[in-house]
């Protein structure tokens, strides 16, 4: 079984700040990591390959330094990794990104399953996985917490807000996975060494035969027009004093406002 896992390198978002003067993101010194949900996707793929044979290929679209995320994925045990990188991809929104990934998958050709994390940690959109499935014309099953493959069918347990759903679909298909699905493995020393030596090919827009009008800013219908720090004006009241005074002041305020 051949599985493609799409990953994204993301900044560790808890560290991102906005420059109050220039109103732009300060990203220097912010560590980059594999999007945590994508680690669950890699783990899911590795388990399936262990069970059914085949190979696991990791792809990512990003700047050259995103190859570090691919190295990390190889160190977890993935067989192959491909970076898709071109200046033409800069400024991609989710539509352009899913198109670019679809062209990459087409170039790889043979696959039974595509697995993605349910969403990226930085953008939180959950739009690229379904977009990719649509461009490839294959079924999607989102929010998977469990996945079994038998023959040409996948049986997926979905985690929804108030229920689970068991869905059966045909392969090839695209699955997005939730964190609760598994515990991603740590890199083994052997795989770390292997990953270090492994050449990671970098494919350009031309390599994947992408129409550059559909990539990057050109191919992105949405545009960010303003980035700003959230409104953090304080309108509240501090209840001062020792703990007993604070607590009794609070209780009487809550009573006054009739919220308790």
């Amino acid at each position, binding site marked *: 079984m051949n599985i493609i896992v799409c990953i994204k390198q993301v900044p560790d978002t808890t560290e991102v700040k906005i420059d109050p003067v220039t109103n732009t993101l300060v990203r220097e010194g912010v560590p980059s990591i594999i999007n945590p949900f994508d680690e669950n996707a890699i783990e899911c793929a590795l388990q399936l390959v262990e069970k059914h044979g085949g190979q696991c290929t990791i792809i990512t679209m990003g700047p050259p330094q995103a190859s570090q995320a691919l190295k990390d994925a190889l160190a977890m045990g993935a067989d192959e990794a491909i970076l898709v990188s071109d200046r033409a991809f800069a400024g991609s929104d989710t539509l352009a990104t899913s198109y670019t990934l679809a062209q990459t998958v087409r170039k790889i050709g043979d696959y039974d399953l595509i697995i993605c994390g349910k969403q990226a940690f930085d953008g939180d959109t*959950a739009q690229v996985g379904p977009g990719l499935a649509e461009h490839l014309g294959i079924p999607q099953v989102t929010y998977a917490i469990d996945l079994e493959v038998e023959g040409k069918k996948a049986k997926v347990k979905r985690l929804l807000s108030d229920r689970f759903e068991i869905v059966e679909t045909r392969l090839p298909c695209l699955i997005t996975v939730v964190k609760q699905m598994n515990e991603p493995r740590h890199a083994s020393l052997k795989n770390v060494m292997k990953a270090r030596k492994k050449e990671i090919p970098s494919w350009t827009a031309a390599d994947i035969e992408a129409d550059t009008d559909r990539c990057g800013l050109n191919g992105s219908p949405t545009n960010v027009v303003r980035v700003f720090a959230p409104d953090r004006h304080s309108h*509240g009241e501090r209840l001062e004093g020792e703990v007993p005074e604070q607590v009794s002041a609070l209780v009487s305020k809550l009573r006054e406002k009739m*919220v308790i």
Partner: protein
Amino acid sequence: MGIYIDSEKCTGCKLCLAACPYGAIEMVDGKARFTDDCTSCGACVSSCKFGAIVMEITRKEEVDTSQYSGLWVLAETHDGKLADVTLELLSEGRKLADELGEDVSLVLAGQEVEGLVPIAAAYGADKVYLVEHEVLAQYRTDPFTSVICGLINKYKPEIVLIGATTMGRDLASRIAARIGAGLTADCTGLAIDPETRLLMQTRPAFGGNVMATIVCRNARPQMSTVRPRVMKKAEPDTSRQAEIIRQSVELNEKSIASKILEVIREEGSSELDVQEAEIIVSGGRGLRKPENFALVRELAEVLGAAVGASRATVDAGWIPAYHQVGQTGKTVQPKLYIACGISGAVQHLAGMSSADCIVAINSDPSAPIFNVAHYGLVGDLFEVVPALTKALKKELGQE
């Protein structure tokens, strides 16, 4: 938006006929051909085993935006009722459409759902596009995408709003990719720019540390998902009526790739859901260890409140994800929200700042949570929370 059949590749197998919801493919001289009823919904594309049906997305600069008008809300139903998020979006959509001087329509797809039209009207719908079919009884990506893309291509709405639920996110991204529309996820603010008449979509980005306003200049429709409880429901006006525009579709269970084999609802969970609760007591990293959630639970119990949690505590595995409040968790709008040891990353604030009354307990006086709190208590939560629990027990006569 263009769709065509490559007659060289077409083998005349008729699979696409079964897949077309609009009955818009006919066989002419052993080859498939689209009739005038074709809405370019795209349902046939993946049904063709020979790659003979090709869909091309119109380039954004070629979209004639003037052809698009009106605001649509895509309905989500639960157990035969309209989901709250649908009513919230109708209420918000009404305000936006009034600024544009346009209509609000609800797209209602399902099985026997016509009875929901009056409620949609009461919350602001002028029209309801009604699609009823047994195949649409439960939400599934493929048939819903095709049916709704068909309607969008036929009636050309300017704006489409969808709840950012598991269903809405699954559906909206698929529709947007099929028709080449711009889609913005999890908007916390929507407004119309008076000059350009564009929809200004504001959402938290980078884990909520910044806010971004996004527009979609050339592609249409402009699509947004909005989380439950972000927008406020209007007062229903039962005197309002909505025009029904019925769309008949031909759907064939056999041509749909995915089947729902089973739905499992977790019974017997005695824990109150944060989205249902009037009062929420939430814990954050300040609790230091998972066991200390007991302090939060004790306070919650006294108040009859639900237990909430920050992303950090859920990610650390201290508490199950369904307690999570925030941009990646649930958005809540309780009467009272008590945050214990939560610093208040914007990602968390995005999920709870519209609570009527917010109390923050934190040892760090500069924690951002104090900026949204109505009442802030700077102090050690290990002292303050038990003292508050005790005081409330007394106040509420539980001793």
